[in-house]
């Protein structure tokens, strides 16, 4: 594996309080992700996959431990700074696409650029370019409700790529799709891997896990297994 470490988790713990009991959704999780890696995070439900993704996505802060993103410790950042990080360095792809229903394809793709303060013309051009790259050049002015699930997820991917993020975070991107559209989406991810994009994907599907170069298995909030290219 080439490249420097982009994501470093150092004894990251996330504790939730439920009444009098506390419970660790993540317990002293340690790992690194290098530039250009394609990582699948797997594990049974309730193992802390979502919590981990939220922490990685700067939507949630760890209770203890450190999270270094691009050599910056973001675990102490305040809300504004975290928003800034999300908008600049991260791209989100969701299981349920999470497109804004009242906006068109093009407008949905533009949203991250808007919050970065990119001008109207530039962001329109960029969004159009990405829509074409994911094969939606003919659907620019449709609303999400007029698209198939696979098409909606492509919009989601285009939106995640529009700000040229350091890391792509995907939460079961094929979970809501039939196998045909799922395969198309995975082909897109494959292409992204070839472009040396760093991808961290939560998934249930062992096939997708195999496609990724590295699998991190979680169980009860701990890293159970970390295998690269099939070897531990």
């Amino acid at each position, binding site marked *: 594996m080439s490249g420097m470490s982009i994501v470093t988790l150092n004894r990251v713990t996330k504790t939730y309080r439920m009444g009098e009991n506390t419970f660790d959704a993540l317990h002293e999780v340690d790992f690194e992700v290098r530039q250009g890696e394609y990582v699948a995070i797997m594990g049974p439900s309730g193992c802390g996959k979502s919590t981990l993704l*939220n922490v990685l*996505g700067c*939507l*949630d802060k760890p209770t203890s431990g450190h999270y270094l993103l691009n050599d910056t410790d973001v675990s102490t950042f305040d*809300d*504004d700074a975290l*928003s*800034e990080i*999300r*908008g*600049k360095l991260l791209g*989100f792809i*969701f299981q349920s696409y*999470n*497109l*804004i*229903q*009242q906006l068109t394809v093009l407008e949905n793709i533009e*949203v*991250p650029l*808007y*919050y*970065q*303060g990119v*001008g*109207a013309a530039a962001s329109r051009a960029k969004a159009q370019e990405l829509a074409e790259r994911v094969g939606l050049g003919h659907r620019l002015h449709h609303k999400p409700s007029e698209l198939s699930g696979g098409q909606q997820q492509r919009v989601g991917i285009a*939106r995640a790529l529009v*700000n040229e993020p350091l890391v792509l975070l995907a939460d079961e991107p094929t979970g809501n799709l039939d196998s045909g559209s799922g395969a198309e989406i995975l082909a897109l991810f494959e292409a992204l891997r070839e472009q040396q994009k760093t991808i961290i994907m939560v998934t249930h599907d062992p096939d997708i896990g195999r496609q990724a170069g590295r699998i991190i298995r979680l169980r009860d909030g701990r890293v159970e297994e970390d295998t690269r290219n099939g070897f531990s």
Partner: protein
Amino acid sequence: MGSLDLRGLILLFNPGKLRRAIALGFKTIWLHRLRSALTMLGIVFGVCSVIAMLAVGEGAGHEAQEQIRRLGSQNIILRSVKPTDDERISDEQSRVLEFGLTYNDMRRIESTLPSVRVLAPGRIIRNHVYHATRRVDAEIVGVVPWYTGIRNLRIHTGRFFSPIEIEGHVNVCVISDSVAARLFPFMSPLQRNVRVGSDYYRVIGIVESDAGAGQAAAAAGGSGGGNYAPRIYIPLTAARTRFGETIIRRRAGSFEAERVQLHEAIVQVDRIEDVEETARIVDGILARDRRQQDYEMVVPLELLRQAERTKQIFNTVLGAIAAISLLVGGIGIMNIMLASVTERTREIGIRRALGAKRRDIILQFLIETVILSGTGGVIGVVFGVVIPVVISRVADMTTIVTPWAPMLAFSISALVGVVFGIYPAMRAANMDPVEALRHE
């Protein structure tokens, strides 16, 4: 956490971003047309009622002030009134009730007060006025030549009588235009004769109706309004000679006689600042040797001040009512925005995940509320300006839309948008992004 980020609200550092936020706001509102329109109604009614109420209030106040002003703000008006039964000092034998202002009173006022410029004593006799077969129930008013000047009466045609006609007790008259319209519908009244009782009077002029005389006093709370009839004016001296001073009214089985020298007198003061002081002195002079309260004094300046105070109170009350209706409108907007925030929790989560800061979310929702209330305000201003016009046409009332009323109402509505938008916007901004994304 949760505090309003002022740096964020001054998001004008990026006008392009602000412009697009506003465009997005309009788009979202347009998406929920019916709901937005209904929400706006509260503000529309609020703004519209502020303007319309102020216009009606302003108009009514203006009308009252106009009437009072026509009485003359430098004038003190004295009127004879019949004493009430228990005050009356009855001379059972004579059966003639003597009361009212006398020539003697006038002379005393004139000699005591140097600042008094003119006295315009008058007599008022209620009688029928005839021309050929037409008849009008009128007040025959005996006055001095300078009466019109004091009362601000405009002479339409002809002239008022001259001092010579006063000297000579000449039977001439000046009729008000309402009398003219009724007695001489098809011809010019000038140089024609009208008959009162058994005497004929030559018409030498027409004046506008003295609307100020009875009505203003009534409007300002004085007595003496009510049965107000059109007037014809004759020289005071002629009135004295032709009608005498005793008026006898016959009723079934009894008769009543009144002796009144003057029914009305107007005292004009040189300087407006002296009016109230002079009024007090005149009152003192008249009250000194009277055994009964047989006159009343009306000071238009005081009435004017009262009317102004009344108008102020009126405006304050109206303003308060209107403010309450705007408040209700604002609460309606807040209600809808809170519902909208809940409904769009997911969208808020998505936007946050894609890099929106709290202040971006605040701005987005605040812009929506301000658009709602501002648009409502504009529509309200349009209605608020049109409705008073309709009111004046239909109800024949004076309405005055002062320029500041729409401006005030609109600014308040915009302010309502900001004030009532802040809470829903903060609520949206303070949502936990993770929770918001999980929201169904």
